[in-house]
């Protein structure tokens, strides 16, 4: 897994590529919670390059979201490949996370 952190019109973007699993999710957790403690208002997560996610990856995002809720921060996903989309819907977390088709949608809504 690799995380590239960039900026879209002033909003932070995580561009994640590769496999998110028990081996890599601790790094994702560090990067995510690092922004959460600094109360990032909005974080866009680009899933286009994600080839795999397991329950440790999902748990990491749940933890991130729970950390953002108290201060009203928003965690927005976009570009989720079909196979990974299915894991979100299987776990009923597609009702909890904000999921958008594109970065523009994620940014504007």
């Amino acid at each position, binding site marked *: 897994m690799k995380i590239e952190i960039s900026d879209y019109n002033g909003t932070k973007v995580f561009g994640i590529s590769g*496999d998110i*699993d*028990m*081996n890599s999710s601790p790094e994702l957790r560090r990067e995510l919670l690092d922004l959460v403690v600094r109360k990032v208002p909005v974080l866009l997560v680009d899933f286009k390059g994600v080839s*795999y996610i*397991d*329950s*440790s990856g*999902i*748990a*990491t995002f*749940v*933890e991130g979201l*729970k950390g953002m809720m108290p201060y009203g921060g928003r965690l927005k996903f976009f570009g989720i490949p079909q*196979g990974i989309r299915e*894991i979100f819907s*299987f*776990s*009923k*977390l597609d009702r*909890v996370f904000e999921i958008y088709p594109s970065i523009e949608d994620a940014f504007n809504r």
Partner: protein
Amino acid sequence: MTKDTTVITVPSHPKYLCVVREVSAKFAKVNGLDEAAVEEIRLAIDEACSNVIKYAYRGDTDKKIIVRFRMKRNGLEVIIEDNGIKADPGVIRGRDMDEVRPGGLGVHLIRRAFDVFEFDERKEKGNRIRLFRELRR
């Protein structure tokens, strides 16, 4: 050796989960399972092995995990063995899916892919998990 049996032994370090995933997926694929089944199986075996690392080995990264794949007439059998702390199968339960919290998803993903998910009580030291997926389902 029985035809269509493959065994992989890896250290209990999370970096080897990707090795187990690839073996799982390729084994299922060469034995004719369709793409959706292959992906479910890949994820389920990863989840089961992650739990071995977390619970049976409490994070020790230099123990052994043995995964044995066997294609039978009626389905795919996967046996996962460790020699860590014995599990209490009674406490193995996923979370209520309507509850939003980190964790508790792995067991659901294992059950999604496999019709049978059981601990073999005959094993003396460590754990032997037996997974079975029927071909017609």
